[in-house]
């Protein structure tokens, strides 16, 4: 009997291993190039941040002036790292959940190269002074059809896999990922058509732009990260998801609320004036889906604290959920029209909110997924626990500093800006110490991500550990294994599993 059960789970494991193998190159391509773009984006972010407090820094290079470097930083972060990490996670997770091998790895890989080409051209466009000046859409206009085309070429296969999946239950992660896959083209096509093809009133265009930014965060990055977290939490701990009804509440409230958010950025501008108020109210209400998902995921994982402590995937995911909770509270605190919204409207706070969403929440969950997925697709274990710990600690300290400094420094700066009887210099002076702190914190994040990139590249080159034991942050045996795994574990088979021939 036991051998029958053994064999059926074995076959199941072989099926999953087959799915992983079919996706090895696309997934590793997206993750590695994403990590490289992340490092590039952070370098650009450091330059931009340094220019805020030391305007003479690199002043001789027109292509590195603040007005070009800052959009290049954000766009590399969003389109270079964020989207590519999301692609890797979506194609892998949808294949796993639909239990279908990927048959289009070559096409996905090609489309991935086209996407990267689009990002490179877009960044060259920004740095050479041909950016459009629309936040998060600074890439020259010709790139957006390129990005859209490669987006569809990459993700259409996941739709097909979902369509032909074995009959049965649709898991929570699939809700979120499918929704994100549909919502993003809607948002992207709407914004780009309205801003590049139809020339409406320029003030309204700024409003659409603000909506686009908010929608990319809450209708793409947020559902992708939540879908991933809903996959990792029960998968790694082995516990069922805490509450199915809470999951439903979280998903549908996000779907209903998120499309309304964003236009509060234009408070006081001559656009129909219900728009900023509805935007502010919707952004505040995003607290509901964020908290519903956070409670659900934390209750699922924290039931087994020892797993959270030892699993890199889970530790990063929990940190990301922490970022989501912080994001939910700052969404409420920063959007009160009579008090904080005017302070946050044109100051560092907006940047802090975006970085918190992109890095503190989304990227951390993506890192968690990377630490889970990569050993499976490469069939090698992570090389070094210490590298993972460096990545985690420097990232956490860095992002806490960047986000908190930008949120609160932004409020300080906003008070300076509001005092219109004082010269504008006063606002800059108030923001100065916060700008210095931001530069230093970005340096920490850069340090952590350079190690992450190196670690990931070594894994893609299949230089990972050949072992059947995962690389955990805390050794289960009280003493850590050597750099090559457990004693006698150099070959593929684990101890006690040597074939008897």
């Amino acid at each position: 009997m036991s051998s029958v059960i053994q064999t059926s789970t074995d076959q199941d494991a072989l099926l999953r291993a087959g799915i992983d193998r079919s996706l090895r190159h696309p997934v590793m391509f997206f993750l590695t190039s994403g990590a490289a773009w992340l490092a590039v984006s952070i370098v650009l972010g450091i330059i931009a941040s340094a220019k805020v407090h030391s305007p003479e820094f690199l002043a001789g290079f027109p292509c590195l002036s603040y007005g070009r470097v800052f959009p290049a930083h954000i766009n590399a972060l969003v389109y270079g790292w964020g989207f590519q990490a999301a692609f890797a996670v979506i194609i892998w997770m949808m294949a796993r959940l639909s239990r279908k091998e990927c048959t289009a790895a070559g096409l996905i890989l090609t489309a991935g190269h086209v996407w990267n080409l689009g990002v490179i051209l877009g960044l060259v466009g920004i740095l050479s002074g041909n950016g459009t000046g629309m936040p998060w859409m600074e890439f020259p206009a010709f790139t957006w059809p390129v990005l859209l085309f490669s987006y569809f070429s990459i993700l259409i296969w996941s739709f097909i896999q979902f369509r032909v999946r074995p009959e049965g239950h649709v898991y929570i992660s699939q809700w979120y990922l499918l929704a994100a896959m549909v919502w993003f083209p809607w948002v992207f096509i709407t914004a780009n058509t309205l801003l590049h093809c139809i020339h409406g009133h320029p003030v309204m265009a700024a409003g659409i732009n603000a909506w686009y930014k908010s929608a990319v965060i809450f209708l793409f990055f947020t559902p992708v990260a939540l879908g991933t977290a809903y996959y990792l939490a029960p998968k790694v701990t082995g516990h069922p998801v805490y509450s199915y009804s809470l999951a439903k509440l979280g998903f549908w409230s996000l779907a209903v609320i998120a499309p309304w958010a964003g236009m509060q950025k234009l408070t006081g501008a001559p656009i129909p004036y219900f728009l900023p108020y509805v935007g502010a109210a919707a952004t505040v209400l995003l607290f509901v889906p964020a908290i519903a998902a956070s409670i659900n995921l934390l209750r699922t994982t924290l039931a087994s604290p020892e797993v959270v402590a030892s699993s890199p995937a889970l530790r990063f995911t929990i940190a990301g959920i922490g970022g989501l909770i912080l994001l939910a509270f700052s969404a409420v605190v920063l959007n009160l029209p009579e008090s904080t919204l005017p302070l946050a409207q044109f100051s560092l706070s907006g940047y802090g909110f975006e970085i918190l969403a992109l890095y503190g929440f989304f990227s951390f969950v993506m890192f968690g997924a990377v630490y889970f997925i990569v050993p499976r697709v490469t069939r090698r274990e992570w090389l070094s626990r210490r590298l993972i710990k460096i990545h985690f600690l420097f990232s956490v300290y860095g992002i806490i500093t960047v986000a908190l400094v930008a949120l609160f420094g932004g409020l300080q700066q906003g008070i300076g800006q509001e005092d219109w009887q004082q010269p504008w210099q006063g606002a800059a002076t108030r923001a100065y110490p916060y700008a210095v702190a931001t530069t230093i914190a970005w340096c920490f994040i850069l340090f952590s991500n350079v190690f992450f990139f190196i670690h990931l590249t070594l894994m893609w080159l299949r230089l990972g550990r050949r072992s059947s034991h995962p690389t955990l942050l805390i050794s289960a045996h009280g003493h850590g294994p050597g750099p090559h795994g457990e004693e006698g574990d150099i070959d593929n088979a684990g101890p006690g599993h040597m074939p008897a021939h």
Partner: protein
Amino acid sequence: MSLPNQTPDLEDSINVTEAHGRVVREAAACAREKRIVDNGIEPISLWAFVACGVVLLVAGGILGTGGRLFSYGSIFREGYIRTPAPGAADAGPVPKEALAAYMSKGAKIYSAKCNGCHGSDAKGNGSTFPSLVGSTWVTGETDLFAMIILNGLEGPVSDGKTYGVMPPQGIGMAAEDLAGIMTYVRNNFGNATGDVVTIDMAKAALEISAARKNAGKSVTGAELTADHVKALPGDVLDPKTLLDPITLAPAKAP
């Protein structure tokens, strides 16, 4: 189970072991995975409801402050004015006396345009840049002084010496800038004429400068003494008049 050589009497057949060995070799990470179970049936806790309820109230309050949100009769809110910082509520900057108001405007222009040559003490360097302190052309007739600033100067100056050529400074200069800089230099660095060159006078100076015979060329001492030894036309302003320091218009009565 359709493994070909499976023998029923051998529980742990060698093939099962082999198949399992393959799993261990090729799919160790997949084999140790746990299965996902999603149907937790815990109820939503009360405090989560309360927290969400509070946020709903906040959001409702925000919509409430928007007034008649969906009234399409008014496209945007009438008279939207950013509220000033607390403590600075009574609108309008503090009025200043005319002389001080003009001089603080002039100080900025001086440091941008004049400081480089004439120096922060306006004493020049004695060889290429003449001193402005005590110069009769500076403290004398306003028309003459204005022409030098606007058009630059070639040849000997009021003390008879020839310094370097002064380039024209009038390009893009607004009347209020000219008025500010003239008032500033005539009442600073030891000069003290005590009068204000008003914006009206500066406007007149710009017109006179544009109507010169050699418009576009630097003025010379000969041209200045021939044509420009006169005061600029315009009403004299009492230097004690209270002005709005930004617009330089007379301040409203308190």
